[in-house]
């Protein structure tokens, strides 16, 4: 090997470093050829044995990268896979149609869905069916997002919320009411009929932009009836 005739001071600079034994035996003289790194300066050679002290001392004045998590929350990436959310149409009706495609797509078997028929008295989503029971078990969920890809109505999406801990197992099975998106101020709480003159496909075409007056009246009347019943009881 060429190394035996070419002992170098800095073995790291040499691509083909000689063995440990040869290195120890090699006399210390500057490399005449082959060494890529420049020879370290006099001072850096002088302080090389105690250079570690410099490293630790200098590190004291570096910025600490620790995130003070519970006190200071670091924003996640925008598309971070966090807790799920069941979205609503602009008037407040649920988007979920109870098709169970998410449950089928789930590789961890974390989603349980039971669909039910919408009736003229109680309509939760436009169209025929709605998700009556919707559970996601966050002890099983691996946050892969396959359920979101499977969802045909864009009812299921993920938020950036990641603080999903609890001392009990039951509390980590999220129910439908926990997963549903909160009602925005102009939305109405289902059940109530579809916007008049609209059918299911119009909802997906974006022709419904908010609750109509008829829907509002219906919900107000429904709530008043419920209040009356409460009083009479």
């Amino acid at each position, binding site marked *: 090997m060429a*190394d*035996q005739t070419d002992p170098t001071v800095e073995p790291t600079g040499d691509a083909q470093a000689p*063995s440990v*034994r*040869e290195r120890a035996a090699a006399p210390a003289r500057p490399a005449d050829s082959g060494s890529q790194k420049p020879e370290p300066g006099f001072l850096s050679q002088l302080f090389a044995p105690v250079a570690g002290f410099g490293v*630790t001392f200098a*590190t*004291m004045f570096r910025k600490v990268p*620790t995130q*003070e998590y519970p006190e200071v929350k670091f924003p996640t990436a925008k598309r971070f896979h966090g807790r799920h959310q069941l979205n609503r149409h602009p008037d407040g009706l649920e988007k979920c149609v109870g098709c169970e495609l998410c449950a089928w797509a789930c590789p961890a078997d974390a989603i349980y869905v039971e669909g039910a028929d919408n009736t003229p008295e109680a309509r939760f989503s436009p169209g025929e069916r709605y998700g009556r029971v919707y559970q996601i078990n966050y002890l099983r969920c691996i946050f892969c997002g396959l359920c979101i890809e499977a969802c045909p109505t864009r009812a299921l999406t993920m938020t950036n919320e990641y603080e999903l801990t609890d001392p009990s197992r039951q509390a980590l099975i999220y129910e439908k009411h926990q997963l549903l998106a909160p009602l925005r101020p102009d939305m109405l709480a289902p059940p109530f009929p579809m916007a008049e003159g609209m059918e299911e496909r119009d909802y997906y075409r974006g022709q419904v932009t908010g609750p109509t007056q008829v829907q509002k009246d219906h919900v107000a009347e429904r709530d008043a009836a419920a209040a009356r019943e409460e009083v009479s009881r």
Partner: protein
Amino acid sequence: MSLLTAYPDLISAGLALPATDGPVADFSDTPVWLSLVKAAFLFVYVVLSVVVVIWFERRVIGRMQQRPGPNRFGPLGILQTLADGIKLFLKEDVTPKNADKLMFIAAPLIVASLAFVSFAIIPLGGEVSMFGHTTPLQLTDTPVAVLLVLAVAGVGAYGFVLAGWSSGSTYPLLGGLRSTAQVISYEIAMGLSLVAVFLYSGSMSTSQIVELQSQEWFLGIPGWYVVPLFFSFVVYVITMVGETNRLPFDLAEGEGELGGGFHTEYSSMKFGMFFLGEYINMFTVSALATTLFLGGFHAPWPLNLINDDMLSEGWWGLLWFTLKMWSFIFLFVWLRGSLPRVRYDQFMKLGWKILIPLSLVWVIAVMLIRAAQEGYFGEGRWVTVATLALIGLFVIAGIFVWDRYAQRRAVAREERMAVPAEVDPFAGGYPVPPLPGQKLVEPRRAVEAAAPVAVSTSTTTHDTEERRG
């Protein structure tokens, strides 16, 4: 006056020896009750320092590793030690079945209580007025005060060896032995480095040593012994790390080898006492280094020029003393943050083969220099310079001889370790792969090596049958 002619004056002037070697601290106006008050003050000072240093160490090491360190309890986590202490108090106090009960309990008591003793002779400050009495900020002083520190450290080693022995378990025993061996062998080098200080000061009393160091050297710079006795200072700093069982010399607690070392079987407050004792020992050796080498409680150089050394008077001394002591504590922490633990044989080799012989040579050199300065070799300003030159020549000759010896050893080692260009992989009977740079001796052809096959089938079957039967 040119520097050349000034130089011998500078050296030969030296620092005048004191008239007596007794303490200069004046305890005549100190009633016994005031001594008790001072002892209580000292106790509080030391314990508070320990409480702060545990937090300080963890914070600083944290920063050295680019993390914040404890920051939960109290502002900047400063109450962390309190939480740790409460935890220690509340833990179950286990005494192993095999333990020798009396010694098992006595050992931590010895370690913790003896750790406090050494602080009695450390001057924390000059004369202060306390409850109508003028008294030095020092519990007591004797003509052999520094020896007391060494003696107490030696007795403290009993605590470690008794703890290891009384635990009735192997690892603690080994750890205790190591700890003792460590303390004893490093105490020799430490003692030798202190001898140089005694030669310069002509006294073993701490207050006297501090007083002498406040004498002006030149330009108002006080003659701290760290300058003329730099080598002793370095030796002392190394030995004080060995003495306190701190990284990189914490072999007695080498987790990889001995579990927890001598305190493996200890829990709760018994362990807490070892912990306390170890940290107080850190302060003791740092305080001693401050006293013997860094001018004790006197203000550092530019500040000592203010108003005729006003800042060294009274309670100010406590500030400078604390600052100097804490700089050593920082050194301890810095060492721990930077260095890995050394091997036991390396540690002993450093102590016995390097520190002790070099210290001996150094003490002799210091002795000669002092003798020349004091005029034992005749009067004249050049005597000291001649002595220095002679010592220098001697040292250079020694280095030269040592270098020749080391070179010869290196050559011998090279010959011994030389790698032949060609190796027979089966030379030792086992296949050995070639080292980088080596060539294999090509093995003989397999066909040639194989014995000719000339075995009749009948014998083989007979053989197998016989073996089966």
